[in-house]
């Protein structure tokens, strides 16, 4: 077996309950984004593009779809003899009755045996629910240059929002001197992105101790990082500049989709030097009908547009009927807006039908409306 310098583990067990009905049946990492992608395509493609070829995906909540999706390593080119995407849900064991992952750190602890089979020098911990493009290999270079025990990726957030995040306080050399979880009076605006590189041997020791600690939350932010800081370990903040979004709510999921429409959007999914890979839909190319009007839109294959689409993102296989209007909205895969219907400031969930002449959402709504059930048409 080829030696793997760094292994990646993606935490993908969260429900994302603030996404309401969108995550009733699928875990947040499997939620659709940007016309043809799923959220987890971003960390997986980043790994593939960064030269990391063994990846564990830790799943828990509603994981049927996510497990089958993430285990298709070929989607991201991770299906050679030496590479693979391994789905790791909690399991029953002979020596303990562990049946769930009790926290982010516990999810790794319960898979120490998996990681040990590869015996990597470094372990990369990622979250399965963020949208960004990042070269983890550069972060590893930074980690090595600093002779760090752990490196945490951070991003500058507006100071007034800093109290919503885990904030890293650093010295001039980017060494982390203090970590504060959602501080009331933040001293810095460097928010943790939930991306960590650890020296595996050192982390392994801490995890083994953490598993036995009855007072621990078994969480990286709450337990592992403070233990390392208190123990005088070398922790560094790696500042990431670029597009990064946690699409935790309906509004932020909508916003992230709308960001793609701007001419100077930072995420730039057209960049062929850093492709985000996703499952190929065997659908015909999009068809725009003779009476259609399309102005500022992101539309993917399998769509059939006969009506008007304005400032909207349309996912695989959506239909917009004659005279229908889709404005400032997101149509998830297979959604259908029938003739004459109007959809404004909505996310229409997967496969939902908006009936003939129906009107959903409104231009001056404060929040984005999630339409998760079929809407009846009118005569």
């Amino acid at each position: 077996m080829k030696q793997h310098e760094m292994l990646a583990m993606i935490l993908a067990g969260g429900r994302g309950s603030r996404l309401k009905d969108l995550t009733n049946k699928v875990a947040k990492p499997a939620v659709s984004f940007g016309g043809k992608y799923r959220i987890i395509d971003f960390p997986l493609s980043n790994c593939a593009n960064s030269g990391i070829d063994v990846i564990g995906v830790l799943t828990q909540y509603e994981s049927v779809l996510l497990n089958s999706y993430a285990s298709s390593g070929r989607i991201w080119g991770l299906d050679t003899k030496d590479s693979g995407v391994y789905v790791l849900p909690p399991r029953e064991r002979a020596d303990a009755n562990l049946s769930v992952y009790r926290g982010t750190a516990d999810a790794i602890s319960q898979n120490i045996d998996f990681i040990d089979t590869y015996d990597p020098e470094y372990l990369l911990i990622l979250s399965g629910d963020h949208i960004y493009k990042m070269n983890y290999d550069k972060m590893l270079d930074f980690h090595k240059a600093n002779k760090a025990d752990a490196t945490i990726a951070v991003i500058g957030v507006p100071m007034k929002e800093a109290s919503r995040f885990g904030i890293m306080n650093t010295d001039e050399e980017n060494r982390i001197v203090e970590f504060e979880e959602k501080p009331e009076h933040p001293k810095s605006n460097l928010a943790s992105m939930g991306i960590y590189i650890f020296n595996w041997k050192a982390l392994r020791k801490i995890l083994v101790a953490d598993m036995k600690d009855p007072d621990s939350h078994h969480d990286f932010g709450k337990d592992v990082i403070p233990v390392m800081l208190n123990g005088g370990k070398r922790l560094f903040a790696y500042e990431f500049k670029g597009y990064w979004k946690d699409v935790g709510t309906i509004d932020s999921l909508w916003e992230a989709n709308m960001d793609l429409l701007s001419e100077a959007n930072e995420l730039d999914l057209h960049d062929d030097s850093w492709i985000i890979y996703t499952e190929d839909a065997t659908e015909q190319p999009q068809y725009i009908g003779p009476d259609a009007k399309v102005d500022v839109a992101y539309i993917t294959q399998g769509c059939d547009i006969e009506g008007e689409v304005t400032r909207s993102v349309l996912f695989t296989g959506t239909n917009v009927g004659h005279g229908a209007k889709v404005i400032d909205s997101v149509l998830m895969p297979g959604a259908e807006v029938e003739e004459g219907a109007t959809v404004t400031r909505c996310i229409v969930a997967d496969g939902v039908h908006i009936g003939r002449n129906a009107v959903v959402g409104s231009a001056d709504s404060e929040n984005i409306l999630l339409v998760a059930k079929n809407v009846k048409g009118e005569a």
Partner: protein
Amino acid sequence: MATAFGIITAGRTRFHVEGLEDYRPIGSISFLGRYRLIDFPISNMSNSNIDRIQVYARSNSRSLVEHVGNGSYYNINSKRGKLQVLFGEENSVNDVYNTDIAAYYQNIEIIERMHQNYVIIAPGYMVYVQDFDALLKQHIESGADISLLYHKVNDAKTNYRNCNFLDMNRQKGVKSIEVNDAEKDDRNIFMDTFVMSKDLFVKLIRKARSVSSVFSLVRIINLESEDLDIRAIQHKGYFAAITDFKSYFDANMNLLNIDVAKQLFEPSWPIYTHTTDSSPVQYFEGASIKNSVVANGSLIKGCVENSVIGRGVIICKGAVVKNCIILGHCKIGDGIRLENQVIDKWAKIQNVDQLIADPDRPGYIRRDDVI
């Protein structure tokens, strides 16, 4: 369960698509933005559970080999199935000797080693949907030696140049296969699709070689027709024969009619192709688009009407593209007007105001050209 293996003829044929075919064999010509012509026969075979497929290529095959790969894009079982590209070496300077039979004969050991008892041969230059499993069943039940697939047309005087038609008796027995002489509009156009047993196929190949080295499969079947039970099976549904530049242009344009396209694209009969992982299409402020098909990865800032836009195409601000086929990765510059053009891959149109052709004689811009 199909007991046939498939053969797809994708190399140089008696047809010639002017311009486009200078760069690639007919089977790997781009079609409807996202596809190559050969995707249709391969998908038909894959959907019919035929998972041993031989693609016959001749010269200029790079794009074909790259496109079909090992068949993994076509839903073919990666262990049990196999898609092979077989090359007919063009030994002869005189092209009359480079027949389909010559290519089969060069690979006859491979053909003889196939475990399947039947062979289905389909062309890489005709676009249609056909369940080959059903066709094979019909062939076996009829007891015929050879079954040939045909499509009834009523415009053979002006179209289907160089195609063959079937001369049949009333019981759909085939008397002979003849070249379309453009004398009658009503013809049963032969879809260059054959079903027969592997043993007969091998016998015909050997026989053809012993009779004449210019013989094609059609010629030997005609010669042997007295001794063979040859039957015609009618195909219904969408059918296009890409036999020259005009028929290529027309077939693409015809599929802009959604009712026509629906005959070709059925949800239960997927058409597979090589994925390129391109992003969705982005339409910018000021863009306008009507009656068009657009493949992923394209950026649309100008006006597009009645056109087929390939992958990763950029239509700049103020450009007007009407009745055009733009192949992958082309760039149409600011304010340029194009009408009735086929723009081959990677071309950049940037230094002219307009390129306008007559709809009956569409224009063609070569691959990689900068105009």
